[in-house]
Every structure is written in structure tokens, then in C-alpha cells.
């Protein structure tokens, strides 16, 4: 028996050693992508895991690294005096199969991404590009011929905009706008070409060498990439490990160099002790929506009718909404979460620079709110006033609120925040709201159907302008979960969009957020953060402000 054990152990050691040694790992990056991306096709993708791969395999007109917009396939660009025509001067570059990449490729790729038949997850973004005719084409109301994009010549790509759009050029770094080669796309329907190395063609720093469903993929350097000289990695071996603990264990064992998320329990320790752990602000906000139109008639009407039956419910009362929002100690919540989240006093997170170069978040301030419990007394006063306005005594209002429910999608993290909020309301205002959770897809249905009292929300934006966040609360927006209808707010956003002048644009946005926060249709809780654990051997890696990792200028130094 002992002998057998000895044999087994030595066999394991030999196998283990042979597995470790052998290959030169010099220029290999071992990266965990997380979940297996649903697609790797830039036009079809709608998820960050796929976006992280595409950002390294494809090159758009421009590339954005750490907030800096750098030339990509466009060497330079000109914006006309009226701001409505943008001309991109393309460099002579090749696809990975050696063929030339021209302006026609961009025309093809963009029209394909807009075509409803392509069914791209991100096609809604065309609305925000302001490209002439794009939104109509996406919605099936227009034709491809009416879209304002032209290949003036092989290396000049011209875009007509409905109105000047200050973030247009930086948006071009987003994967949805990256080019795809028609012959490759035709070789594998539904984006399968992008997972099949035999027909795969790209124009970025890396090309796909292998893809294994549910397991991982291998990228190798693309020698045809226009900036190949700066690419310092030969091979990227990527895994699809969706369990954060396993990925973290692999990182600790030295089997991975770059992992996108760590177990929540480890975050606090890593922030304190690790110099390989990074926390980035993420352009998004965690919040709760009040339902302000329970009868669903498109009007924020009365709380109750003359018989005392519910019409639009308690949350049409602005003072009540404000009292609830003021009774949250946001700092206590973000400290307990412990991943560097920023307490939210508005809807626009840090990271957006206005026309004066100031951070929108900083300039906007908190609208009278403080991050901790400093508003609690004011909240109690507002709560009493709200009761009077609603024609109730405070104890009647408390009873009414104990019949309301705060709904979130099932997850330990959301439960944690909801319980904190429940506790803070109970301590400060004296009512205990019901908590309920629903499975994700069910929850989304319930929320968009308006069958809730208070519901969790989260929004991450995809382009560098605050309007992308605020506009979800426009009356007509599909994501206006609080069912908030305010013509002044709508008009301010429309003015901001129509403004040809940057300062007017931002003035209107500041005004819009102020109007919004005075109304308080939502309770902003915190602004998201993104975490990464990156070994020191990975040198000069980048990240776009919108959250895609960038290995196009990275090298590996294993000492």
C-alpha cells in the first residue's frame, strides 16, 4: 500500500512538472476573460466580455486608452464648421489576410450593424450617434441609402450628423463601430466566423488562433496590424473562468496574469494590501426607482382618488421621495460594500469632463444631500410635511409605507444594499418596508411593466457624455422605470442635444440634472467601480474609460 502511494505521488509530481515546464512563457499573456462571450463579432456583440476581446482583435477609426483618444485606422479627422460633417482620413492598412482595408469596409460594417436583419444588440446606440438616417434604418423606418455615411474615396470616410455631437469621435473607439470584413462575415452566419480561426479576419493587434466553447481562446499577434511594432505580446491564452474564486485561486497559483474580478470577500484585503489590485470608476449608477405612475396612464397624477383608492400611489409626492432619499446613509453603504464605490448624490457619475474641463460630477454637487446621515433630521421634517400633503397623519403614512415593497433582482449583493436601506428607513423614519426579490429575467419584465412600488436599477453608459445617462428618464424612454414625466426635464435634454455650443450643451445638462434631483424620481445610491487584478509582469496595459481592456501596447516581463 505504501509502495503504491509512493508511485502515485511520484507520478503526480512528474506529470505536474512536465506540465509546468517546457514552453517558453516569455511573451504569453494568460488572461481570464470571465464568461464565455456569446459572440466575438463587433457588430453583434453587446457584452463586456466579448467587448474586451474585440477591443484587442479589431481597430476602429480611433482608439481610446485611459481616456486619451488616439488615432486608429483614421490617421486624422476634420469636423466641418457647422459641426455636422466629420471626415475621417484613413491610413493605408491591411486586414489580417493581407487585403487592403478601405472606407468601403466601414460603410459595409456600419450598415450591417444598423440593419434590423442583423439584429445587433447594440443597434440602439445609433440614436445617440446622431448619424443622419441611422436611427430610422435601425427601426425599420428608413433605408440604407438614406444613411449619411459615404466612402468619398478609398481612404476618406465621411459621416453626416443631424447635429453637432461633441462625443462623436471618441465614441468611434467603441467596438460596435469597428470594421468587419464582408467576405469573412459571409463565411460564417450569425457571427460564427468570429469564432472560427479558419475564416477569421480582423484588423487589430491580435487574431484568433483557437476558440474552444466554454473553455478558452487563443489570440496571436497580427503582423498586418498597422501598429504591430508596438505590440509586445506574441500570444494571449485566455480562459473562460466565470467563478471568481477559481480565477483568484488560479491567479494566486501563478496560472493567470490578469483577472477581471475577484471574490467580493477579498476586495477589502486586496485594496489594503495588494499593489496588483486596481479599482476604476465605472460610468454608471446604482439606484432605486420610485413608481410614479402606478395606474400606467402616462401621467404622474394623484396619489389617491376621492374614495381613497390608489391612483398613482404614495410616491407621486415629491417630499416623500426626498425624505426617503435623504434618509439613506450612502457612505455607510459604500463602506460596507468596500470596493471603492462612490456615494451618489446625482445620476451622473465621476468621469465626464464639461466644456471647462471640470468634472461634471464635482461641479454638479449633491443637490443639498450629504453622503452620510447629515440629512436625517431634514428628512424627518419632510416626511411629516409629506404626510400632511397626502392628507394623512404620520402614523397613517408609516402604515401605508409598510404595505409597500422594495423589489430587487435576486443576488446577495442587492439584498445586502436593500437590507441596509430598509434598516436606515426604519431607524430614521420609523417604517419597515417589505423586501422582495425576483429572478433576473422575471424582474426585468416586472420592472418594465411598472408592477412595482420601488425597484432597483442600474445603468452603465457607453459614451462620453452625461446625456447618455440622463436621457433614460425622458418621458418616452423605454428605460424610464420610475415612469417620470416632466416636460421641463425633457425640454432641457432636447436643448442640450440640439446645442451647437459646448457650453450651452453642458449648461442645459447641469440644469436637467438639477431639475431631476429636485424631483427625486429615483434614489441614487452609489456609482459603480470596476476591479482588476493584474500581475506586475504585465507591463503597459490599458483600459478604456468605458471599461474595455487594452493589450495593444502591452508587453510581458517575467524577469
Amino acid at each position, binding site marked *: 500500500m505504501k509502495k503504491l502511494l509512493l508511485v502515485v505521488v511520484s507520478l*503526480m*509530481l512528474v*506529470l*505536474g512538472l512536465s*506540465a509546468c515546464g517546457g514552453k517558453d512563457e516569455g511573451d504569453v499573456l494568460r488572461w481570464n476573460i470571465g464568461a*464565455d462571450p*456569446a*459572440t466575438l*463579432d463587433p457588430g*453583434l456583440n*453587446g457584452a463586456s466580455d466579448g467587448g474586451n476581446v474585440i477591443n484587442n482583435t479589431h481597430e476602429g477609426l480611433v482608439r481610446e486608452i485611459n481616456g486619451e483618444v488616439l488615432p486608429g485606422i483614421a490617421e486624422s479627422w476634420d469636423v466641418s464648421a457647422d459641426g455636422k460633417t466629420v471626415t475621417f482620413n484613413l491610413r493605408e492598412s491591411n486586414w489580417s489576410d493581407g487585403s487592403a482595408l478601405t472606407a468601403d469596409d466601414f460603410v459595409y460594417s456600419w450598415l450591417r450593424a444598423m440593419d*434590423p*436583419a*442583423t*439584429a*445587433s*444588440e447594440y*443597434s*440602439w446606440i445609433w440614436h445617440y450617434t446622431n448619424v443622419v438616417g441611422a436611427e430610422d434604418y*435601425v*427601426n*425599420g423606418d428608413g433605408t440604407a441609402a438614406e444613411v449619411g455615411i459615404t466612402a468619398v474615396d478609398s481612404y476618406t470616410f465621411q459621416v453626416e450628423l443631424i447635429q453637432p455631437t461633441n462625443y462623436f469621435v471618441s465614441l468611434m473607439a467603441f467596438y460596435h463601430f469597428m470594421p468587419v470584413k464582408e467576405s469573412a462575415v459571409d463565411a*460564417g*452566419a*450569425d*457571427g*460564427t466566423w468570429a*469564432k472560427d480561426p479558419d475564416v477569421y479576419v480582423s484588423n487589430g493587434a491580435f487574431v484568433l488562433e483557437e476558440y*474552444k*466553447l*466554454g*473553455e*478558452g481562446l487563443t489570440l496571436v499577434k497580427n503582423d498586418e496590424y498597422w501598429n504591430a511594432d508596438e505590440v509586445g505580446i506574441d500570444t494571449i491564452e485566455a*480562459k*473562460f*473562468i*466565470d*467563478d471568481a*474564486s*477559481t*480565477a483568484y*485561486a*488560479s491567479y*494566486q*497559483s501563478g*496560472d493567470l496574469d490578469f483577472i477581471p474580478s475577484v471574490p467580493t470577500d477579498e476586495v477589502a484585503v486586496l485594496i489594503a494590501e495588494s499593489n496588483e489590485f486596481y479599482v476604476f470608476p465605472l460610468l454608471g449608477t446604482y439606484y432605486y426607482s420610485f413608481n410614479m405612475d402606478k395606474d400606467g396612464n402616462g401621467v404622474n397624477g394623484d396619489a389617491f382618488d376621492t374614495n381613497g383608492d390608489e391612483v398613482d400611489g404614495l410616491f407621486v409626492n415629491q417630499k416623500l421621495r426626498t425624505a426617503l432619499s435623504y434618509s439613506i446613509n450612502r457612505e455607510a453603504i459604500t463602506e460596507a460594500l468596500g470596493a471603492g464605490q462612490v456615494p451618489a448624490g446625482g445620476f451622473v457619475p465621476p468621469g465626464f469632463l464639461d466644456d471647462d474641463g471640470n468634472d461634471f460630477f464635482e461641479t454638479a454637487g449633491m443637490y443639498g444631500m450629504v453622503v452620510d446621515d447629515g440629512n436625517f433630521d431634514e428628512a424627518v421634517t419632510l416626511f411629516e410635511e409629506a404626510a400632511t400633503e397626502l392628507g394623512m397623519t404620520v402614523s397613517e403614512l408609516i402604515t401605508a409605507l409598510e404595505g409597500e415593497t422594495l423589489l430587487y433582482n435576486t443576488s446577495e449583493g442587492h439584498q445586502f444594499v436593500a437590507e441596509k436601506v430598509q434598516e436606515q428607513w426604519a431607524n430614521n423614519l420609523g417604517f419597515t418596508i417589505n423586501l422582495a426579490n425576483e*429572478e*433576473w*429575467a*422575471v424582474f*426585468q*419584465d*416586472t420592472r*418594465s411593466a411598472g408592477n412595482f412600488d420601488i425597484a432597483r436599477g*442600474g445603468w452603465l453608459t457607453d459614451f462620453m457624455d452625461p446625456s447618455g445617462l440622463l436621457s433614460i428618464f425622458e418621458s418616452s424612454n*423605454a*428605460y424610464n422605470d420610475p415612469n417620470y414625466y416632466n416636460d421641463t426635464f425633457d425640454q432641457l435634454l432636447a436643448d442640450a442635444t440640439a446645442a451647437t455650443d459646448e457650453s450651452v450643451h453642458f449648461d442645459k445638462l447641469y440644469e436637467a440634472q438639477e431639475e431631476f434631483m429636485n424631483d427625486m424620481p429615483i434614489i441614487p445610491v452609489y456609482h459603480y467601480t470596476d476591479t482588476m487584478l493584474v500581475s506586475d509582469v504585465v507591463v503597459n496595459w490599458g483600459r478604456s474609460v468605458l471599461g474595455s481592456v487594452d493589450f495593444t501596447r502591452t508587453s510581458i516581463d517575467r524577469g
Partner: protein
Amino acid sequence: MAKYLIKRVLTALFTLLVIATITFFLLRAIPGGPFTREKPLPDAIIRALNEKYNLDEPLFIQYLSYIKGLLTFDLGPSYRILGYTVNDIIISGFPTSALIGGIASLLIVVIGIPLGIVSALKQNSPVDYMVMFMATLGVTVPNFIIATLIIYIFSTQLGWLPSNGISNPLGYIGPVIALMGYSLSFVSRLTRSSMLEVLRQDYVRTARANGISERKVIFKHALKNALIPVITYVGPMVAAILTGSFVVEKIFAIPGIGRYFVQGVTNRDYTVIMGMTVLYSAFYIFMILLVDLAYSWIDPRIRLEGGAR
């Protein structure tokens, strides 16, 4: 025998049809759909997608075409893993799940049954106590804890085993052990108690009284009967283990099909859930058939035609 088999196969097919039907309609009854997104897709796109996957047809027509596909082993396209069919997903992941599950099942039988026998024969000895202690531990400690411990001790701390995946053959060790844990313990406990019961039977006493050697008494007379409850358990267990475990595959980052049972539901990927359900049910029904056949082989008193039971 042939008549019996034909009858059983036909019943099995009918059962599968019923399962597929119930699952199909239940799935459509839950809120949410494959194209539900946090950022809602434009209507034109939803229409295009529904048209593409024939989700715009009346539900009953969709059902008929699904069943028609099923009869030709065409499980349809996944709605969420773009460009992949459910057949692709099964072909890609099933061999991995089945290999790990197969090794685990084999080891459960090869180790669990002898342990149970030894324990029964040496009842109340230190060996018995040790085996039963381990078995209790195995039944009560969930597999995700076993899996996490294996990774922590043997990968992170000692570095003996790979921390993820099965690209290295040593990678099979962790998942196999984690998968075995519960069933191995259960099988050895079951074997032990069943064996103890059989050993007290009159015919065993008679055999011993007749001077038949102890080895022959145990292996020829007692064991065969003692195995009947064990086989009843092992049949369905094999079906469950071969079709992969969500937890074990997730923790060890194994590209099997276990994850699709859960992912399919979360994503409302109707065809994937259907495919996984049908695959698992088919396996399950097949294993039960094998169990029934094994009964009659072990105990000739059990007649397959179901007459003299």
C-alpha cells in the same frame, strides 16, 4: 425478452415526449424571454429576432416544429450563444462531462461497494467505524466545499494540481473527487446496511450450516441480493453524474455541459433548456431500464414481464 424490450423502449419514448411537452409549455409560461435585456432591444430588432427563430408563430406551431426537430435529433439553435446549435453545445461539452462523470461513477462502484462489504463483515470494528465516519462526512459535506478545499489545498497551497481546467490530465483528479463525494459515501453506507440485512437472512444461515465456505456464502449468496438496493440507486446516479454538475464544472472551470442547465434557464435560452432536459431524461430513463434488466440477472425470481414478482 425482445417483446419486453420493445415495450419498454416505446414507453420510454412516450415518457420523453411527455417530459418535452411539459417543459416546452412551462418554459413559455415563465416571464422574460431570450431577448429580454437590461437595455431593451429596439422593437424592429425583437421582431427580426422572433422572425428568425420562428418565435412569432403560434405557440402550438412552434411546439410541433420543435417535436419534429427532436425526432430527427435536431435540437435547434441556441438563442444566446450566437451561431451555435444545441447539438453543437452538446457535442462540444458532453464528452468532457461524460468522461469525468464516467470515471467518478466507476470509482464510486469500485470503491464504494467493497468498502460497504468490508464494513458490514467487520461490523463495529475500527475499520467499520472509520468507513462509516468517512461516509457520513461525504454525505454531509456539500460538493462545492470539497471542490473549494481541493483547489485551496492541492492547487493554491501545494501546487500539485492545476488550479483550473483539464488541459493537464491531473486536472481530472479534483472534479472526479468532488463529484464522487456524496455518492461514494451513500453507496458504501447502502451496501453496508443492505449486506448486514442479507447476512441475517435464513438462507445465509442455511448456507453456512451446510458448510459452504465463507467466501462462497458472501460472494455467491449474500452479495448478489445485497446489491439490489445499491443498483437501484446507482442507475439514476450515473445519469445525473454523466450529464455534468453545474457546481463542480463551474468551480473547476471545466468546459462540460453542466453549466448549460443553469445558464439556459437564466438566459431563457429555450432550446438549450429543452435540449438539456431531454438529454438528461433520456439518460435517466435508459439507466432505469438497465437497472430493471440487472434485477432479473441478479435475482431470477424477478421476472421482466412483471408476472411473478
